[in-house]
């Protein structure tokens, strides 16, 4: 007898979103989380006494507004703070700043290029239109163009009409976005190197590709989607760190009646007669349910938890080919004082104003491409790309009064590093990051009280993301839409009846977005 309607494997944000929707629909839901806390990669931890870190994922950029509304996340404690400027320090104490205020931003861009200052607004409008064009795809289970089923055909026809109604130049542009490299795409718009580099960086995050690799332009758009909502502001920094996003979703799930068990590691999914019957925990406890949903990534779900013997061979083969190739690391610093970026002092800019936004180490496209070159051949970038935020500037409670925490996203740090990840390599990565940054902010080294370095191998070990890929599989075109994770199985279902997937390894993919969890819940509810 199944005592639960649904078991959700993994209390990451997608698993929790899925559980919350299912519980709200009246299902009896049990979430099983391996670790001592929920959140998966969206979690906050007091790594050093008084210093709290969003250890892994560190901003909210794509969390779906409908999820915030449906689950009433603000009522459960979600407070998203604006994160609105980007500072790109350059050589010789120069810099490029992108400000939220239109006039301030234009003036700064004009300092670098009058043409770019003008193109900037047009570029923003174009991305807005492109993001709007692609947005309906996020909320739906992606239709498979090869399928001849009536529902699929209807969905495809709907999409077809949608694209047919699109203005011609929009369609052309969208096609370009889907096929070009982000650097090439940006070359069509801008001439300022630092601007192109900083913008193209969002096209490479989480992939083992460089800004000149084809297909990266789309990822740029994927990240822009978060900005589409304008004043809704679903993007920014979650007060309390990203763990508070997970806590709010967990709160919503519990309020709807879901049960969440931590320290409950699933050893395998019970399958009999090609049907999921429940799960077995490490330690042998068997828990039965009518439906099992896995928030783990496709490799862990199918190869570890379900097992090859329960799956068709060609499906297993496709799962094996699904690419992870984690390429990023995190360096988390506890600081006794704010870093002094010399470019700010030189320009007379109040550092408190500039450091409330992000700092991007992306001086030129060539810099990024060279960083990628190292990774291509299995090395950590000697001069890596970094995306830095100082959460304590936005939420002082993240650090003791007057002190700071700094979160540094680092790329490239390939999972498949030559010789494998060792403690020495981890520390060398930390040193490379601090050395690079200290060139722009010389007081940094003395300001560091504690340092935590998280490699892709650490991400895999601690959170369970295969190869440390932050998106549960690379966000590249051949692994998106109806191809994610595997052609013909992109709609949250699996070859095992009663087994579903709800992680970022499914459409529409990674980021603290929750769309996969919500779509999966809808697929499950629709099937029942």
């Amino acid at each position: 007898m199944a005592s639960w309607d649904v078991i959700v494997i993994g209390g990451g944000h997608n698993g929790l979103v899925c559980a919350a929707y299912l519980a709200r629909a009246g299902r009896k839901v049990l979430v099983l989380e391996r670790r001592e806390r929920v959140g998966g990669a969206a979690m906050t931890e007091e790594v050093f006494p008084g210093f709290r870190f969003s250890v892994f994922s560190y901003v909210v950029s794509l969390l779906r507004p409908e999820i915030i509304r449906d689950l009433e996340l603000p009522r459960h404690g979600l407070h998203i703070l604006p994160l609105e400027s980007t500072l790109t320090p350059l050589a010789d104490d120069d810099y490029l700043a992108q400000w939220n205020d239109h006039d301030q931003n234009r003036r700064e861009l004009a300092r670098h290029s009058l043409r770019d200052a003008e193109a900037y607004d047009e570029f923003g409008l174009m991305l807005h239109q492109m993001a709007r064009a692609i947005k309906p795809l996020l909320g739906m289970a992606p239709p498979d163009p090869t399928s001849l089923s009536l529902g699929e055909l209807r969905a495809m026809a709907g999409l077809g009409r949608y694209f047919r109604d699109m203005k011609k130049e929009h369609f052309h542009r969208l096609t370009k976005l889907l096929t070009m490299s982000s650097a090439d795409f940006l070359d069509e718009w801008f001439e300022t190197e630092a601007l192109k580099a900083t913008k193209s960086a969002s096209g490479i995050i989480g992939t083992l590709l460089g800004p000149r690799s084809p297909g990266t332009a789309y990822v740029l758009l994927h990240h822009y989607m978060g900005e589409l909502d304008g004043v809704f502001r679903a993007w920014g920094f979650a007060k309390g760190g990203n763990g508070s996003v997970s806590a709010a979703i967990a709160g919503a799930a519990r309020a709807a009646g879901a049960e969440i068990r931590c320290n409950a590691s699933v050893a395998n999914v019970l399958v009999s007669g090609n049907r999921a019957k429940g799960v077995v925990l490490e330690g042998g406890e068997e828990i039965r349910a009518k439906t099992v949903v896995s928030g783990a990534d496709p490799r862990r779900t199918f190869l570890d938890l379900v097992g090859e013997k329960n799956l068709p061979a060609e499906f297993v083969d496709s799962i094996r080919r699904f690419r992870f190739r984690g390429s990023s690391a995190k360096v988390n610093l506890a600081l006794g004082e704010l870093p002094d970026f010399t470019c700010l002092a030189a320009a007379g800019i109040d550092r408190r104003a500039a450091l409330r936004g992000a700092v991007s180490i992306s001086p030129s496209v060539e810099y990024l491409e060279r960083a990628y070159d190292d990774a291509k051949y299995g090395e950590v970038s000697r001069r890596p790309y970094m995306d830095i935020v100082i959460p304590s500037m936005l939420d002082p409670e993240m650090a003791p009064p007057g002190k700071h925490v700094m979160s540094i996203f680092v790329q490239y740090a390939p999972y498949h590093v030559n010789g494998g990840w060792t403690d020495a390599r981890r520390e060398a990565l930390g040193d490379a990051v601090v050395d690079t940054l200290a060139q722009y902010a010389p007081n940094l080294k003395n300001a560091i009280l504690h340092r935590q370095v998280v490699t892709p191998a650490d991400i895999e070990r601690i959170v369970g993301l295969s190869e440390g890929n932050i998106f549960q599989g690379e966000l590249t075109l051949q692994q998106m839409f109806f191809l994610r994770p595997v052609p013909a199985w992109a709609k949250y279902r699996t070859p095992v009846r009663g087994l579903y997937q709800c992680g970022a390894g499914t459409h529409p993919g990674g980021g603290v977005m929750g769309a996969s969890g919500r779509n999966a819940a809808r697929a499950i509810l629709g099937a029942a």
Partner: protein
Amino acid sequence: MLKTTPFHERTAALCASHAWRRWAGYVVASSYELSHEREYHAIRGAAALFDVSPLYKYLVRGKDAARLLHYVVTRDVESMKVGQVAYTPWCDAAGKVLDDGTIARLDETTFRMTAAEPNLRWLQDNAAGLEVKVEDVSESIAALALQGPASRAILEEVDLKYFRLAKTKLGGIAVTVSRTGYTGDLGYEIWVQKTDALPLWDYLIEKGTPYGIMPAGMLALDVARIEAGLMLIDVDYVPARKALIASQTSSPYELDLGWTVNLKKERFVGREALAAEAGRGPQWQFVGLEIDWDSLERLYAEVGLATRLPAMAWRTSVPVYAGDEQAGYATSGGWSPLLKKYIALAHLGAAHAVPGTQLDMEITVEHRRKRARVRVVKKPFFDPERKRG
């Protein structure tokens, strides 16, 4: 010439936006930064410092001080303890609201009353035959509101319950601190002699900086007070003294302030009319509205746009409909960046005011008047435990 507050030397230097607003003949900052957004988030996430000096302040002193106020306002003042603060409206003889503010009992025979409008004459006229002196201290007393979850930590030496007040020293400066405010959050208001205003400002900024304190202006405050469901004179109601026609006036019951009307008091201004109204029930109710997102999104999608939301709180009268019939009107509204909801405060005919009632509110989309679905909800929209805790 507009007056400047005792904090102007500091606030002017900080006001990067050059956006000022008039308040009771003074200028105060609308926002300090170019956008009020971060100032708003400081209220809800850290601490915000407001210059609220333009409030009218009266010192009411003498043997009959309690008697006078007990008679003028709708709440029970005589049973207030020393150190207690009470929010209250006061009415004319017809039971229509003249103004609203706070009354603080500083000692047995001394009260401080705050008001949005001048009230000296009203207080003095009602004091005939009583042993009481009313002094307008609006100019000599400066005031700051420190609001937000970190405000308690910043005022570490102050330990006050909700709506209580104490005389104390902050950085050596003699002040009165009350656990009050206009944000619906944990917060305090600090009252100081104007000669000590600048050192107090400096002390609070220095003390608050590690906690993320931000000077904040009226735009941010407006969003917060709507979330807190707090009405604003001249915006959400017309004070009876300014009403040109009777229908412009409102009773406390019609403003959702029935809880402040103490009919057990034998005599107070407006008692008879209010007792009668309490018997028959008010015609109007002052409620919260939540604008339905999907309905709003549809209106914009029809013209090919992403949903637009007001970037600032609005304060205009907007019709609200029940079917074809006008059920009332909203007087303030805006997007709550915290709740991620479009909310409004509205006056509705009593029949339409039950929480959960679905109505329509007018909204202009691309120059055309449309209607979006709204739902009547209980105020306040945001009510964190820390407010009273």
